[in-house]
């Protein structure tokens, strides 16, 4: 059982602040580090893994400094985002080398390869591997010494759905075994499916923390914006504004459409088609205009 403590950590590169005064505690189980691209997730993971010094603050694993402390890697397994991994070796040679660097041998390597189900391709050169296979061999190299903390940077990038499910199962199992597993992702669904606990980072700041239901509620309770075109925009607007689920409507003359702000997502989505039918109005376009993850995140930051 290991606990990773990030205490008032900031990191800047020149004038750019990549991580801004983040404090979080990562305990046993699976934690998802969620944030849009460029939010500072990789910077944060690099500091957690001891590959980057915090400009201020500290990162400790069970009370031990991570930065400039090689001995800490007895307890940490790292799955980096970058692809490069000694492509001239076979999968087995690569995992064996990783085991040897931990002072372990062939047996540990074989066990790790079995865990990720890569034995069937272990004697092929890594250069010939697909992205998912690479990811699994990386995973094996990180598991070879049975670490209590596992750090994974965007582990699902480029994986097909089946590989994604396999890796999720594996990470879930690691979490069930009492390991501290932290993975980063910019995809909400991935995090929601896998993580018990979510940490949201936006623009270098710690935006939210908690179990995924709380975060999900924050995300669905926000005002939703829709762009609607219909056979009679003004009549539709008049009918909709009477309902409390609609907070505001703007007639956009240039676009020839209505911009509707809804506060009660569930109620509004049921209301709109009903109102249209009752008034004999044909709906031509209904499109959410702020469903991008970035807008969800920026809402979370403001919340």
């Amino acid at each position: 059982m290991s606990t990773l403590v990030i205490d008032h950590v900031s990191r800047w590169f020149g004038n750019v602040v990549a991580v801004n005064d983040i404090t979080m505690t990562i305990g046993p189980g699976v934690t998802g580090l969620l944030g849009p691209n460029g939010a500072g997730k990789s910077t944060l993971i690099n500091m957690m893994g001891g590959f980057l010094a915090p400009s201020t603050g500290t990162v400790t694993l069970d009370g031990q400094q991570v930065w400039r402390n090689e001995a800490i890697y007895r307890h940490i397994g790292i799955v980096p985002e970058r692809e490069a991994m000694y492509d001239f070796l076979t999968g087995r040679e690569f995992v064996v080398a990783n085991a040897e660097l931990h002072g372990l041998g062939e047996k540990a390597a074989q066990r790790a390869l079995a865990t990720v189900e890569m034995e069937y391709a272990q004697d092929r050169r890594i250069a010939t591997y697909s992205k998912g296979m690479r990811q699994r061999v990386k995973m094996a190299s990180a598991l070879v010494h049975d670490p209590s903390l596992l750090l994974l940077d965007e582990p699902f990038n480029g994986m097909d759905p089946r590989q994604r499910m396999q890796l999720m199962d594996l990470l879930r199992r690691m979490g069930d075994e009492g390991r501290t597993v932290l993975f980063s992702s910019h995809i909400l669904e991935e995090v929601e499916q896998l993580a018990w606990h979510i940490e949201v980072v936006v623009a270098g700041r710690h935006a939210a923390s908690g179990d995924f239901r709380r975060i999900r509620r924050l995300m669905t309770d926000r005002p939703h914006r829709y762009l609607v075109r219909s056979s009679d925009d003004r009549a539709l607007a008049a009918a909709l504004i009477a309902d409390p689920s609609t907070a505001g409507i703007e007639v956009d003359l240039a676009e020839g459409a209505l911009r509707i702000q809804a506060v009660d997502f569930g109620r509004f989505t049921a209301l709109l088609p009903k109102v249209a039918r009752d008034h004999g109005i044909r709906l031509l376009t209904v499109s959410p205009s702020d469903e991008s993850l970035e807008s969800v995140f920026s809402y979370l930051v403001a919340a």
Partner: protein
Amino acid sequence: MYDPTVARLTYRALLGRRRALILGALPLLLIVISVAVRALTGADDQTASDVLGGFALATMVPIIGVIAGTGAIGPEIDDGSVVYLLSKPIKRPTIIFTKLIVAIAVTMVFSAVPTLVAGLILNGNGQQIAVAYTVAALVSSIAYSALFLLLGTVSRHAVVFGLVYALVWEALFGSLVPGARTLSVQQWSLAVAHKLAGGDLVTSDVGLPTATVLLVAVTVLATWYAGQKLRSLTLAGEE
């Protein structure tokens, strides 16, 4: 201080197909030149010394040193695969020292051995010319490896800087600016060769004691500093 797994990975990366071809090209050229010179002019001590000093020691050894020294670590840092070495409970100076040993071994094999062969072809080791230059090549292999390994650790453009040092500083400035010659691995190793070769066929601008001190100092300091740099190596993320 020495990790066999790090060494194995480094050897395999260094002697991968493309790099091995480049490493083999210059020694081959040296042998071809030596055979041609011997066939055209016959065995001559001065000519042998000119070829070994002018091409082998002044050009081939530093270039092989650049390829082996920077290649032992630079590409791993560039593509990020060094993370698999760094995320292990191994002292960072151990990684550097191991890579230094590998770089030295590769540089020696690809530069000192062909120098000896070329020397034997040119004048059959008359006046100890072949042995003198071989020893110079061995000695400079150590210093170049340490220097270029450090360069590979601190710079993404290590090969360019290395070649600039090897070709511009050692070859060009060395022949034009007298002061530059004192600060040249080539001159230091020539001081060693001078001691071994007969007559005044091999000359150096630096005395043997100075040369020895500088060779040792450069090797030790470069290795120590590379170890320190690796301890605080920052891996830039994709962001």
